[in-house]
C-alpha cells in the first residue's frame, strides 16, 4: 500500500502543474514557517536566558552563605568553628570570609551608591570568582588605596583604569568640631570587574580586608562566610545548607544560591512553557490554511478521485495519499521554520542595537541556546497540529459519489 501512496505523492509533487505552487499551498507553507520560526526563536531566547543567567549567577556568587543567626558579625571564634566544620565536609571545595558594607562612590563629580566588599584577594582557590572576572587593568588589592570596581559603576562615574575614585562611608564617622565627618578615602582604580550580573557590575567595589574593616568599623569581624561546593553538589546546595544549619544548632543562618534564586528559575521554566503554549496557537491558526488547502485540493481533484475509486481504489487509500502529501509538505515547512528561527535567533544574539534592560532582566545581552529536546518538541507539536488539521477535510473523499462525478455534476 505504501508503494502506491508514495508513487502518487511523488506524482503530485513533481507534476507539471506544480499544484503546491498555488496560492493556498504557499499560504499554508508560509504560515507554518512563520509560526514555527516564532516558536523556535522564543524557545531559544528563553533557554539561552535561563542557561546564561544560571551560569552568571553561579559564576558571580558562591554556592552557600553563612551568617550569624543573631544580629552581628562572625568573629574569630565563629570562623574557627566554621573552618573546622566546613573543611571536614566532603562537599566543600573552598571557603572564604568576606566583609560587606554600603558606601557612596564618587568620581568626576558624580555620585553612586555602592557595595564595598573586603575580600581575601590573594586566596588561590576562592569561593567566588573574582580574579577571572577582572577584564581590564590588574587584580591587585595589596595597596590600601587600590581598588577594583564593577564595569557598570565605572561607566556611570565615567572612570577608567588608573583614575581616582572617592569612597565615603557613614558607618565609621568621626565627631569633629565641624560636626560629624564620615570616613572618606581616595582610591586608584586598578582594575574593572564584570560578572555579567547587572546588579553586581553596577555596585561592587573590591578592597582588601584591612581597608574594608576600616570602612565598616568592624574589627576582626566578617559579614559572612562564602562556601563553594564541588560541582556535583551544586544542585543540592539548599539541602546541604539546611543540614549544616541543623548540625550547627541554628547558631548560623546558612542559605544557598537556590534559596536566593530558586523562585526565579521556577518562574522562568513556567514562563517558558506558557509562552510555548501561547505560541503553539500560532501554529493552530496556521493549520486553518492547511484545512483550506487540503479541501481545495480535494475539490479540484474530485474527478480524478472518482475515477480512481471506479477503478478500485479504496477511499482509505486516497485519504492516505492526501495525508502523506500534507505530511511531506509540513515536514519541509516545519524544518524550514526551525532553520529560519535559528537564523533569526542567532542574529538577535549577535546584534547590539536591541538589548535587554539590565536592571530588570539581570543580563542585558540576548543569549540564545538550542536544545535537541525543544527542537523535537516543536517538530512534534507542530506536525501533530498540522496533520490533525489535514484530517478534517478528508471526509470529503469518503462522501464522493462516483456517479455524480461521471455525470459531471458538482
Amino acid at each position: 500500500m505504501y508503494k502506491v501512496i508514495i508513487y502518487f505523492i511523488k506524482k503530485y509533487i513533481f507534476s507539471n502543474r506544480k499544484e503546491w505552487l498555488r496560492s493556498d499551498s504557499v499560504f499554508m507553507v508560509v504560515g507554518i514557517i512563520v509560526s514555527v520560526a516564532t516558536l523556535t526563536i522564543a524557545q531559544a531566547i528563553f533557554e539561552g536566558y535561563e542557561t546564561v543567567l544560571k551560569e552568571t549567577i553561579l559564576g558571580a556568587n558562591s554556592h552557600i552563605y553563612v551568617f550569624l543567626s543573631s544580629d552581628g558579625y562572625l568573629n574569630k571564634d565563629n570562623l574557627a568553628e566554621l573552618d573546622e566544620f566546613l573543611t571536614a565536609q566532603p562537599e566543600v571545595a573552598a571557603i572564604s570570609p568576606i566583609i560587606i558594607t554600603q558606601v557612596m562612590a564618587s568620581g568626576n563629580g558624580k555620585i553612586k551608591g555602592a557595595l564595598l566588599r573586603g575580600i581575601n584577594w590573594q586566596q588561590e582557590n576562592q569561593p567566588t570568582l573574582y580574579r577571572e572576572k577582572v577584564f581590564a587593568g590588574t587584580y591587585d588589592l595589596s595597596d590600601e588605596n587600590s581598588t577594583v570596581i564593577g564595569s557598570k559603576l565605572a561607566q556611570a562615574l565615567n572612570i577608567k583604569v588608573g583614575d581616582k575614585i572617592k569612597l565615603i562611608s557613614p558607618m565609621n564617622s568621626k565627631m569633629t568640631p565641624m560636626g560629624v565627618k564620615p570616613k572618606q578615602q581616595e582610591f586608584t582604580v586598578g582594575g574593572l570587574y564584570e560578572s555579567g550580573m547587572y546588579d553586581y557590575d553596577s555596585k561592587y567595589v573590591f578592597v582588601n580586608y584591612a581597608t574594608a574593616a576600616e570602612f565598616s568599623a568592624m574589627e576582626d569581624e566578617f559579614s559572612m562566610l562564602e562556601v563553594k561546593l564541588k560541582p556535583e553538589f551544586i544542585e543540592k546546595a539548599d539541602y546541604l545548607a539546611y543540614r549544616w544549619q541543623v548540625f550547627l544548632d541554628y547558631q548560623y543562618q546558612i542559605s544557598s544560591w537556590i534559596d536566593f534564586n530558586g523562585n526565579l528559575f521556577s518562574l522562568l521554566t513556567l514562563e517558558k512553557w506558557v509562552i510555548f503554549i501561547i505560541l503553539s496557537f500560532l501554529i493552530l491558526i496556521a493549520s486553518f490554511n492547511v484545512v483550506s488547502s487540503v479541501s481545495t485540493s480535494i475539490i479540484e481533484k474530485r474527478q480524478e478521485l472518482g475515477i480512481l475509486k471506479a477503478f478500485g481504489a479504496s477511499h482509505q487509500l486516497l485519504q492516505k495519499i492526501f495525508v502523506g502529501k500534507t505530511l511531506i509538505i509540513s515536514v519541509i515547512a516545519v524544518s524550514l521554520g526551525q532553520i529560519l528561527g535559528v537564523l533569526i535567533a542567532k542574529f538577535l544574539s549577535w546584534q547590539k542595537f536591541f538589548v535587554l534592560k539590565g536592571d530588570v532582566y539581570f543580563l542585558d545581552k540576548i543569549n540564545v541556546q538550542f536544545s535537541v529536546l525543544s527542537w523535537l518538541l516543536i517538530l512534534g507539536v507542530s506536525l501533530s497540529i498540522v496533520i490533525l488539521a489535514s484530517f478534517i477535510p478528508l471526509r470529503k473523499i469518503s462522501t464522493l459519489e462516483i456517479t455524480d462525478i461521471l455525470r459531471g455534476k458538482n
Partner: protein
Amino acid sequence: MSLLKVENLCKSYRESTGKLEVLKGINLAVESGEMIAITGESGSGKSTLLHLLGMLDSADSGEIFYFEKLKKATDKDINEFRNKTIGFVFQFHYLLEDFTAEENIAMPMFLATHNFGKSLKEARNLLHSFDLYGRREHYPNQLSGGEQQRVAVARALINKPEIVFADEPTGNLDAKHSDELIGLLVDLNKQNNQTFVMVTHNLEIADKMHRKFHLEYGVIIK
C-alpha cells in the same frame, strides 16, 4: 451459468418535483463472450443501468448476480471486485492528467498488485497491440481524441476483467475514429472472447453487437 444476471432492478431519483422513476424492473442476462448493446433515448436511464451493473451505485430494489453470486455496491470487497472483475470505458476518457499514457493504463493493475514494474510491462504490451507504443510517454492532453479513448480501453482491459462496461465510448469521436474504436472492441471480443456491454444510441454500432436491448419507459423492450 450466466456471467451476469439481473432481476427486477428498480432505481429512482428524488427530485424537487417528486420521485423520478428511471428503472422500473430490469431483467437481463449476459453470457461470457457476448457483446451486448443497450440503446435508448437520451435520459432513458442507460447510464443509470450501467452504473448499477458496474457496482458504482446501489439499486432501490432488485438483484444483480455475477456467476450466480449476489452482489451489492455496498459489499466490503467491492473495490477489489470493481478493480478485477469489471472494466469501464466512459464517454469522456477520464484519464489522469498527471500521468502518462502507459501510467494511466497501468493504474488499475498497480492498484491491485502494488507492483509498478509488472503493471507497466503489461501496459506496454497493451500499447503495442493497440498501436500506441510510440505514444506511451505522452500525457493525455498530448493525445488525439481517438488515442485518448483507446488508452482508456486499454486501461479497462489491463486487469483482464470478465466484463467491460462502455458508456457511449464513441460519443465524442468523429465517424472515422468511432469506427476504429468499435473495430478494436469487436477484435478484442473475437480474439480474447472479451465480454462487452455497451451503451450507444448509434444503431449502426448496435447492429454490430451480438444482442441489443432497447431501454424505454424504464424497462427493456427487445
